């Protein structure tokens, strides 16, 4: 069927900020969708609040709105733009929920706007647990015994009938938020309460647990002509019971016979036909390992994380084709973009094994519960391809960048057998490695199967890997053994460990022996048809399909999995770098391993290598491609960390040289450089040992800021007030980064300033200066950033620009740099310089209209900034105020303290823009999911150091009509200032405590700056978690509170009583 001509303009809703359960995959999907619709000649209007995305680049749509995805703002845009239609199935759960809200508000009917693709009633049928169950019953498809419950009594009634364990699945939530498995009454109380809270319709599904079944997924597509296909099937290595986003997944299914496969394929296709899905859809099934019995677990009537994975695993671009289906095209008339010569109505067949491993944030959240269940906790994922299962999973393991290169744990041989058994029985993020450890100790796969319910097929593969360690150990430098080890995916790092030598030594030995990988093409058809797709993975076989061209090339290293501190913004920069390389006339080659991203879309670069980002894997590609050089400054710390090894092997690092990177990152060298160029920094020194640290801290004077050098996102950074704290910290920090020293700086309170700049060696372009709302001490990624600065004098701005210029030239930056300053008592100090692209690059690029990554890349490749038409110094600021507001995923992470500090905790960000700071902030906060209420009650409980400042804030809250509730200490301070306040008890006191206030929804906002600390036992911690669990905004910085207050003030009119006439005597 030809595409629709009765519609001209289409509104696409994006997925908003990156949160756990909704990551870069929707940037990939959205970007593909927008381009795909534009390609068909439609006018595309895009709304997304996330500035760090490729999809919000102005080239991606005819009109791009970076505005909050709320009914209020989307309606406004709809009224302004009057689109003919709306596409909502590519923006994750956010986009889908927005479409439903819009529909229910009546605006779509009022303006005659059609929802494209899958219709709302189908979405309802798939997402509403009750309707879905009814539909499945009608179709005769089995679903586990379950019941919809609306309160805890109904939950008990269900359990009485079915018995434990049961699974709680809240309706209409993302990534299973608030859900879990209950084994007893206690679990039930807790999980049902949180589930009901998180479900927008206060509804949960209670379901008989079928933990232990195989979990199988089908990624399916259907068009309006009822053609339906399966793009990819996937088998979870972890059995049912762990959220698929938290499971190790392999594609295609490995342990299913054709009969089982076809049975489940038929079921999946029947369901999407019944639902009349038009576009992509994900069907999750549970299959009994001992019979043909199966259950339908869930259907996602939209493009999802799994479809991004399926797209990358097969090459088949689901989102792109889903968008075209939405405008009426059918699968049998579109070409398969991978082969270019076969049709899209086709089921890809793989001739390799794909493995996905999630990336969890537990390295940053030490106190978090690490166990995995039905609620997703991973922030990102890696994918790897190989020709054996072992190769595939071993490549995925080292792609994670957790310091692990094989199936072992640091200190694994010292762990007790009981501990290992426990950690295998109760799934956690490290289960795979505990299994490796168990196998090494001779535990049989049958026993491990009993503990974990993981299929023997997979366990046998893990056993193969572990057993081969012994063989390697006994046969050093044996060519045949080495070759087999490589075919099993062993990295040189592990081989070196077993041969008691260095990784470099093994690499060189292999080169001499000719043991090098070949690269195979991903072509959707297992070689049956010719394909020009430049999409490759490495393996150890005979034929290499990746041929070097005559064109000069540049390799760009991507940023790997999304994690806290390294999000989608680095993928944004990577993609722009690729485009600039191409514009400069070179062939752009990208290496990355994140299946969610735009950069791993094969149509972005001239060549895509889907490979781990380790020195070995990158060097293999360099050896083959012989590029002009490698660009490392856009791939975050992942890429930067490879710079020294690359240079040591004779590879040219394009952009800022390794020596200069080191000068910015090595504390002592940095200090002497600053000295030379005359830029001040807070007093500080490097400590190599614990006693040294104590001496330095005493010298500088507490409080001090401590952190290991060379880390990401302020990991393990802390403000330390006493020696005792310092000693405690040193133990953890040394563990966090054993090879690197610890930096100790004077902690200066003051305004924090962030600057991104581009330098070509002569000219320094400063696109903008950002001012943080929160004072220094809160990680820049967790602060609200404001552009342009609102409180800086002209001379201060000039000083910052001058320092930036001196730093750029003095550190010999070629390309991008990011600087953080603090202004303390009228004096500007530099806190940190990152000689690379930063988190704020997309934000600033979008505001200033300077494509920073592009300009930087061209500068790196020899086209000066002036030649590119830009000028030296600080660029003229455009009109308006722009704020970047961080977004957190605390609801997903139990037992994590939400208090803001030097260590980064946010997973994503949104942008708010308007004519005043308050309006911009309002949008930013709303887009970040905070409800800003015009009136209500604010609960205050602040630490002693903040008590002075809280007074003014409290007064202003009263002025707006807010009521104040406070704990005793805070209340006393306020009462002393004649502020009306209701006192509530602290935790553990008699009568109503502040916990009751929070739980009963009596406070609309909480300001809590109580005791920091990693021990969950502390009151402050408990209070903050309680706010998360109850969905009440909690501000942990006085500055954020003040900003929020100014927004509330700006929303309301003043209501001052008339002044009484003064009596003249």
């Amino acid at each position: 069927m030809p595409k629709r001509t009765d519609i001209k303009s289409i509104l696409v809703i994006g997925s908003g900020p990156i949160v756990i359960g909704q990551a870069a995959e929707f940037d990939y999907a959205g970007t593909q969708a927008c381009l795909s619709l534009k390609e068909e000649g439609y006018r595309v209007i895009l709304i997304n609040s996330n500035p760090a995305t490729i999809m919000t680049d102005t080239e991606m749509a005819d009109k791009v709105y970076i505005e909050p995805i709320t009914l209020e703002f989307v309606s406004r845009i709809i009224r302004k733009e009057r689109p003919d239609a709306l596409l909502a199935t590519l923006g994750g759960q956010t986009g889908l929920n927005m479409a439903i809200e819009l529909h229910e508000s009546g605006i779509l009917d009022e303006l005659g706007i059609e929802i494209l693709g899958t219709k709302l009633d189908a979405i309802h049928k798939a997402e509403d647990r009750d309707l879905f169950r009814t539909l499945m019953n009608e179709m005769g498809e089995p679903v586990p015994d379950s019941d919809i419950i609306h309160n805890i009594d109904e939950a008990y009634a269900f359990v009485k009938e079915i018995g434990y364990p049961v699974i709680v699945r809240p309706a209409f939530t993302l990534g299973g938020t608030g859900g879990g498995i209950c084994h007893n009454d206690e679990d039930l109380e807790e999980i049902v309460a949180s589930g009901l809270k998180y479900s927008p319709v206060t509804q949960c599904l209670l379901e008989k647990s079928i933990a232990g079944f195989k979990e199988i997924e089908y990624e399916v597509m259907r068009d309006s002509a009822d053609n339906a296909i399966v793009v990819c099937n996937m088998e979870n290595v972890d059995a049912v019971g762990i959220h698929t986003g938290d499971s190790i997944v392999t594609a295609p299914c490995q342990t299913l016979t054709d009969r089982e496969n076809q049975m489940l394929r038929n079921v999946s296709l029947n369901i999407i036909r019944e639902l009349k899905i038009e576009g992509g859809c994900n069907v999750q099934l549970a299959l009994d390992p001992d019979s043909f019995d199966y259950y339908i677990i869930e259907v996602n009537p939209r493009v999802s994380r799994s479809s991004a994975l399926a797209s990358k695993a097969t090459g088949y671009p689901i989102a792109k084709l889903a968008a075209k289906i939405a405008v009426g095209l059918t699968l049998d008339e579109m070409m398969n973009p991978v082969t270019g010569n076969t049709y899209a109505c086709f089921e890809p067949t793989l001739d390799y094994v794909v493995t996905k491993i999630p990336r969890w944030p537990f390295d940053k959240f030490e106190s978090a519960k690490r166990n995995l269940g039905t609620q997703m906790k991973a922030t990102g994922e890696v994918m790897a391809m190989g020709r054996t299962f072992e190769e595939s999973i071993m490549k995925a393991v080292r792609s994670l960048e957790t310091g692990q290169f094989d199936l072992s744990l640091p200190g694994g041989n010292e762990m007790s057998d009981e501990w290992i058994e426990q950690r295998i029985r109760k799934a956690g993020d490290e289960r795979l490695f505990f299994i490796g450890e168990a196998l090494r100790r001779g535990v049989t796969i049958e026993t491990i199967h009993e503990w974990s319910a993981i299929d023997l097929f997979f366990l046998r593969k893990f056993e193969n890997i572990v057993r081969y360690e012994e063989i390697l150990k006994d046969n050093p430098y044996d060519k045949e053994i080495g070759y087999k080890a490589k075919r099993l995916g062993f990295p040189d790092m592990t081989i070196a460990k077993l041969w008691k030598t260095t990784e470099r030594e093994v690499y060189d030995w292999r080169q001499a022996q000719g043991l090098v990988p070949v690269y195979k093409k991903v072509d959707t058809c297992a070689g049956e048809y010719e394909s020009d797709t430049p999409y490759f993975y490495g393996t150890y076989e005979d034929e290499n399909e990746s041929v070097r061209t005559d064109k000069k090339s540049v390799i760009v290293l991507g940023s790997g999995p999304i994690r806290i501190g390294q999000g989608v913004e680095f993928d944004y920069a990577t993609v722009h770098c690729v485009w600039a390389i191409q514009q400069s006339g070179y062939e752009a080659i990208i290496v990355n391993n994140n299946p969610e991203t735009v950069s791993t879309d094969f149509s972005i670069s001239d060549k895509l290598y889907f490979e781990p980002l380790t020195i070995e894997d990158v060097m293999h590609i360099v050896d083959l491609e012989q590029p002009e050089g490698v660009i490392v400054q856009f791939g975050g710390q992942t890429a930067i960390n490879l710079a020294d090894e690359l240079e040591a092997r004779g590879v040219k690092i394009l952009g800022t040289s390794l020596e200069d990177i080191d000068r910015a990152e090595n504390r002592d060298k940095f200090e002497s450089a600053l000295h030379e160029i005359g830029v001040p920094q807070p007093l500080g020194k490097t400590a190599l040992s614990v006693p040294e640290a104590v001496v330095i801290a005493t010298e500088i004077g507490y409080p001090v800021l401590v952190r290991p050098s060379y880390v990401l996102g302020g990991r393990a950074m802390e403000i330390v007030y006493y020696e005792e704290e310092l000693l405690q910290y040193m133990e953890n920090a040394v563990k966090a980064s054993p090879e690197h020293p610890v930096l100790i700086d004077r902690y200066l309170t003051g305004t924090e300033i962030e600057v991104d700049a581009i330098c070509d060696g002569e000219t320094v372009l400063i696109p903008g200066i950002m001012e943080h709302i929160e004072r220094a001490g809160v990680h820049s990624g967790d602060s609200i950033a404001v552009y342009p600065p609102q409180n800086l004098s002209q001379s201060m701005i000039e000083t910052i620009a001058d320092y930036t210029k001196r730093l750029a030239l003095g550190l010999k930056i070629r390309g991008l740099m990011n600087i953080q300053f603090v202004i303390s008592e009228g004096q500007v100090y530099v806190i940190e310089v990152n000689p690379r692209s930063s988190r704020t690059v997309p934000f600033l690029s979008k505001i200033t209209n300077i494509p920073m990554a592009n300009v930087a890349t061209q500068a790196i490749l020899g086209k000066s900034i002036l030649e590119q038409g830009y000028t030296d110094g600080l660029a003229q600021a455009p009109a308006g105020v722009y704020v970047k507001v961080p977004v957190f995923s605390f609801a997903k992470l139990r037992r994590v303290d939400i208090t803001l500090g030097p260590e980064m905790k946010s997973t994503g960000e949104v942008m708010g823009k308007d004519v005043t700071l308050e309006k911009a902030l309002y949008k930013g906060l709303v887009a970040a999911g905070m409800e800003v209420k015009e009136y209500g009650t604010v609960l205050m409980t602040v630490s002693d150091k903040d008590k002075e400042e809280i007074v003014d804030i409290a007064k202003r809250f009263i002025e707006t009509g807010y009521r104040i509730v406070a704990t005793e200490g805070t209340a006393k301070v306020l009462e002393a200032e004649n502020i009306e306040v209701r006192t509530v008890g602290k935790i553990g006191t008699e009568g109503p405590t502040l916990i009751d206030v929070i739980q009963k929804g009596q406070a609309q906002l909480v300001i809590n700056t109580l005791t920091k600390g990693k021990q969950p036992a502390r009151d402050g911690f408990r209070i903050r978690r309680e706010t998360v669990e109850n969905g009440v905004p909690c501000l942990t910085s006085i500055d954020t509170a003040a900003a929020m207050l100014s927004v509330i003030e700006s929303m309301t009119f003043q209501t001052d009583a008339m002044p009484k006439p003064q009596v003249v005597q």
Partner: protein
Amino acid sequence: MEGWSMMTKRYLVLEDGSIFEGKAFGAENASIGEAVFATGMTGYQETISNPSGCGQIVVMTYPLIGNYGINRDDYESIDLAINGLVIRELTEEPSNFRSGMSLGDLLILKGIPGIQEIDTRKLTRLLRDKGSLRGKLTAAGEEIDTDATVAELQQYELPTDLVAKVSTKRPYPSPGLGKRVVVIDYGIKHGILRELNKKDCDVIVVPHDTSAKEISALFPDGILLSNGPGNPEDVEGAVETIKELLGKKPIFGIGLGHQLFALACGAKTAKMKNSHIGGNYPVKDLNTNRTDLTAQSHGYEVLEDSLAGTGLEVTHRALNDNCIEGLRSEKLEAFAVQFHPEASPGPQDSNYIFERFIQLMTASNRKENTNA
């Protein structure tokens, strides 16, 4: 398992002189056949037991083969007809509740050589570019004389009596209470019988060389021309028999049966450069305009140009290479499909074709009754 076990060397030599070294599994003997590749990711048991694969050395493109073992249900014939199996990696210890033995043990039992640790993607690309090639799997552990082997292969003539090899030697029934279907066995897959049984057909399977007279004497409601191996022109007597039966009773052909039906109607067939063996071939039903994913296993096709004047109407086409996948003659109450509506292995989307056969038989009976 790939690893330390010292397995015996084996070579695959192709007529173009290419040599692939790997490890032997299955039977120890050498074997010659036509090397073709199969792209299904599941269904190796069905593929190797499909009689259409008679005489072939089958290359599986999916690298891990044997994962779920061999079970009693998924055979497509009692004996394996292939001459060899080429894979990347054999799973020696399968994992599936139905598994009764490993793939390696089955090949030993059936005397079929296998080779693993082959760069099957390289081999597939070679076969794609050059078309199917004659190949030899050497005896396990035997060193090769390349020139002699290549010469042997170039002189080797692919056998033309494949159908006779795989067809049943004597008729057998598979009783039911529904339509009487006489199946002419050119190398029938069990899947076809399963489908007929599901529809409660009263099936009688007869050898490939059964005469039209004998078939008519079984009073069929319809006749099914089964799938089978090789070149349709090599099947002696088949075209004449079908010609005699055409117009008398509804006829339904599958695979080789489809080609024989076309030949009987006066069309021509030819060998394809690349066989279609796999489960992801999109085929458009030209009447409903719906595209289904189909299972296929054919190396010959009906030629488009030869249809003129035959009265045959094209009902199905392969989406990708436009190959004829279905033919019909309304007048003769006969139709055929090149793909496998019974799947096994592969997608079951086109299962409705069997229903069409039943409907055709019903309609035909009704007509006869009215005429009578």
